[in-house]
């Protein structure tokens, strides 16, 4: 398990190697020009207000691009977090007479904690439930703002909010906000390529696969929520300082929807998209100001647009543009050459890598797995077979922690893993693939394998991003796909996707590799290649436990076979003897 400090949401400047900063120099130059423009150009009050609103709102929408774009979790309370930050600055600088900076940081912390608390509800809830929790939170915050008059002054709001000494003039304050926007934008942009960012994307793409690749799914979601809330709070604090007045109606559920729409319109996955969406949705209403003479008409059109965007532009404006841009560029950077992959499976326990005793899994009255014993010897290939519905995949899911065992004990290389969560089992040295391939579909092959290599406790990978990439490249080259490392998953054939999934597991240098029907859906050439690959893996001393229906593959690759039928073990031993066992023959061909 990695220490929390490794997972800090925002990478401190300077951690990145120099070339990265140099490469991003244009960004900083551009940002500096924008800040300079904001500080020197003469705007009238109206334009200034619009710019200030767009800047602060963009920061709040960046929060959504973290939680929704990167991590795939819904948050319908961003206006509440925005409001927490705004009220912290509002009440703090007026009634409490505290410095602006203390209030800003305080507001961020309050939002962060509230966000982490909401994130905690994701432990047991997803989807609709989560949407509802965030709406409820939003409503409670609004109710408190309106009714706790002693604290918030109620519906009248808080006037005369102060700015910091340093940025008293509205011009300099705007420049300050633009600078904050540029910094936050940079961090959010790069978050995607940090360990935490990769974990979030993995959780979004495939939660199950994220778990079995060593990612603590629950913790990742909490970080995403906390970070989103933090950015909301920061944006709110800046907003309050800028407009000097806050009231409850600025932070209502409707505003949360506005934030969400900004994010969706621009493209939820990227900060640039967020900024575009925010800018448009602040400008359009200004252009359509004449519509405001009819109350509701503008928002009605707004609602219609939400439906239309969802239906016709699922990736938002930026997604649409970026897609075309990628196709226009069409050239994918060639990956670096890689050394040969080293597999050094840990050898702590004795001769037996995996010892399963009396394992049972019952679903209600159905005994899917019933008192099964399996002992996998170190080195070589062990197969687990049985007719359809015999309990093989259930066994594998109990082994990797996707199901909790009803009873029995699982010991991996001397460690009892029976009650561990999937990511803890991975840290303990378990690697697996899935029958229906579970790759992170929005990422490249290399990124997928990097997530595998990032497994906590992987001794085969050095410190830093370069070592990670190197390890991932070695694994991809090992399965023969090194030259296509930077391509998206969707451009690979089904058979190659299987190989990437195996590479992802290999990169983590597991002690035991579980393969769930690796030959399913492969044609005969691909099956031969798979067989060769298994031999090369086994040659490096990694133990494989394989489930498959392809008896040719199983009988040739495995030295040892365990056979299940009706959730019980009916045979176990050396391959050829097991396949001739009368019970096995009748289980497969049917009894007389």
């Amino acid at each position: 398990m990695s220490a929390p400090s490794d997972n800090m949401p925002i990478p401190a400047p300077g951690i990145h190697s120099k070339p990265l900063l140099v490469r991003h120099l244009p960004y900083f130059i551009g940002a500096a020009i924008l800040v300079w423009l904001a500080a020197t150009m003469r705007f009238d009050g109206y334009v200034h207000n619009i710019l200030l609103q767009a800047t602060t709102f963009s920061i709040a929408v960046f929060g959504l691009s973290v939680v929704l774009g990167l991590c795939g979790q819904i948050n319908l309370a961003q206006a509440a977090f925005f409001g927490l930050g705004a009220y912290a600055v509002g009440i703090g600088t007026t009634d409490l007479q505290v410095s602006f900076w203390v209030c800003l940081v305080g507001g961020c912390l309050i939002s962060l904690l509230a966000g982490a608390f909401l994130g905690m509800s994701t432990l047991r809830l997803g989807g609709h439930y989560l949407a509802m929790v965030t709406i409820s939170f939003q409503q409670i915050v609004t109710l408190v703002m309106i009714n706790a008059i002693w604290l918030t002054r109620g519906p009248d709001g808080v006037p005369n909010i102060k700015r910091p000494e340093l940025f008293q003039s509205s011009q300099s304050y705007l420049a300050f906000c633009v600078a904050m926007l540029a910094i936050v934008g940079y961090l959010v942009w790069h978050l995607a390529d940090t360990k935490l960012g990769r974990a979030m994307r993995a959780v979004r793409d495939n939660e199950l696969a994220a778990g079995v690749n060593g990612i603590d799914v629950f913790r990742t979601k909490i970080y995403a929520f906390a970070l989103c809330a933090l950015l909301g709070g920061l944006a709110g604090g800046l907003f309050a300082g800028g407009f000097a007045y806050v009231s409850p109606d600025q932070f209502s559920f409707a505003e949360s929807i506005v934030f969400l729409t900004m994010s969706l319109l621009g493209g939820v996955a990227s900060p640039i998209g967020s900024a575009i969406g925010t800018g448009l949705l602040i400008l359009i209403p200004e252009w359509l100001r004449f519509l405001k003479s009819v109350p509701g008409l503008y928002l009605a059109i707004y609602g219609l647009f939400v439906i239309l965007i969802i239906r016709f532009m699922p990736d938002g404006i930026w997604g649409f543009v970026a897609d075309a841009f990628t196709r226009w560029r069409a050239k994918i950077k060639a990956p670096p050459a890689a050394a040969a992959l080293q597999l050094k499976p840990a050898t702590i326990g004795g001769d037996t890598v995996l010892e399963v005793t009396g394992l049972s899994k019952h679903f209600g009255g159905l005994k899917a797995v019933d008192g099964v014993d399996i002992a996998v010897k170190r080195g070589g290939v062990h197969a687990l077979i049985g007719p359809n519905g015999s309990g093989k995949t259930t066994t594998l899911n109990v082994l990797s922690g996707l199901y909790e065992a009803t009873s029995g004990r699982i010991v991996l290389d001397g460690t009892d893993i029976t009650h561990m969560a999937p990511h803890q089992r991975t840290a303990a040295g378990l690697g697996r693939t899935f029958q229906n391939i579970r790759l992170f579909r929005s990422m490249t092959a290399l990124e997928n394998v990097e997530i595998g290599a990032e497994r906590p406790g992987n001794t085969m990978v050095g410190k830093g991003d370069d070592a990670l990439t190197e390890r991932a490249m070695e694994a991809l080259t090992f399965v023969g796909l090194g030259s296509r490392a930077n391509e998206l998953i969707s451009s690979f054939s089904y058979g190659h996707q299987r190989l990437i999934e195996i590479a992802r597991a290999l990169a983590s240098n597991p002690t035991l590799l579980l393969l769930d029907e690796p030959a399913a859906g492969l044609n005969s050439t691909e099956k031969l290649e798979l067989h060769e690959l298994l031999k090369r893996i086994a040659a490096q001393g990694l133990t494989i436990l394989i489930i498959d229906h392809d008896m040719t593959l199983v009988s040739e690759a495995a030295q040892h076979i365990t056979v299940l039928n009706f959730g019980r073990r009916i045979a176990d031993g050396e391959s050829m003897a097991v396949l001739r066992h009368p019970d096995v023959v009748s289980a497969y061909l049917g009894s007389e």
Partner: protein
Amino acid sequence: MPLLEIRNLVVRYGEIEALRGVTCAVEQGQVVTLLGANGAGKSTTLRAISGLAKPTSGDILFDGKSIAGLGPEAIVRMGISHVPEGRRVFPGLTVKENIMLGASNRRAPTSEISREADAMFDLFPDIRKFTNALGWTLSGGQLQMVAVARGLMAKPRLLLLDEPSLGLAPVIVQAVFKIISEIRRNTTVLLVEQNARMGLSVADYGYVLETGRIVLGGKPDALWGNEAIRAAYLGGHAKVSA
């Protein structure tokens, strides 16, 4: 003219080519069994016939008319009833209700459907006492009986049965196959079966599928003697007679 004729059928699921050109036929009044290992494409063949899977190319003729590409609702109305793998008995409905819904493909008054459902219990006496039990409370064998009974309520001219023996104890498997041999008196059956011995015991004709292709077809006796069957199930390389 065969009741069902499949010509060069190809079905893809995204990248996977599940069927790579299957050609076979089912004559009126026969029981035809499709054999093959897991993943060979047996279930996909049935899914393509009943409209759950869209054929990529090739044709499916029922009674001489092409049904390839039609939706499942239209196909069951033409008289093809599919009892899918895993029984798929509605867990929140009772046994009787499940069976009654089998007649959804034809217009008949509810009272008549109810009478027909009651009559079904004569063919399946083992589930009569569960008439009002909810689907999820039943055991595998009972669920299989309900699923077949529900399939027969459509009064099909062709019944597609997918792995009726799956996960059932041998005694129950025999009971299920006893019913299949009774059904065949007035219904044509296309049976998919992993249990080769059982599958061929009731069949007039059999086909062996391997990785999306028919590799063998013939009378049960001829098939049973062929090494390809053993190879398809237990591995080893057999000579493939295309």
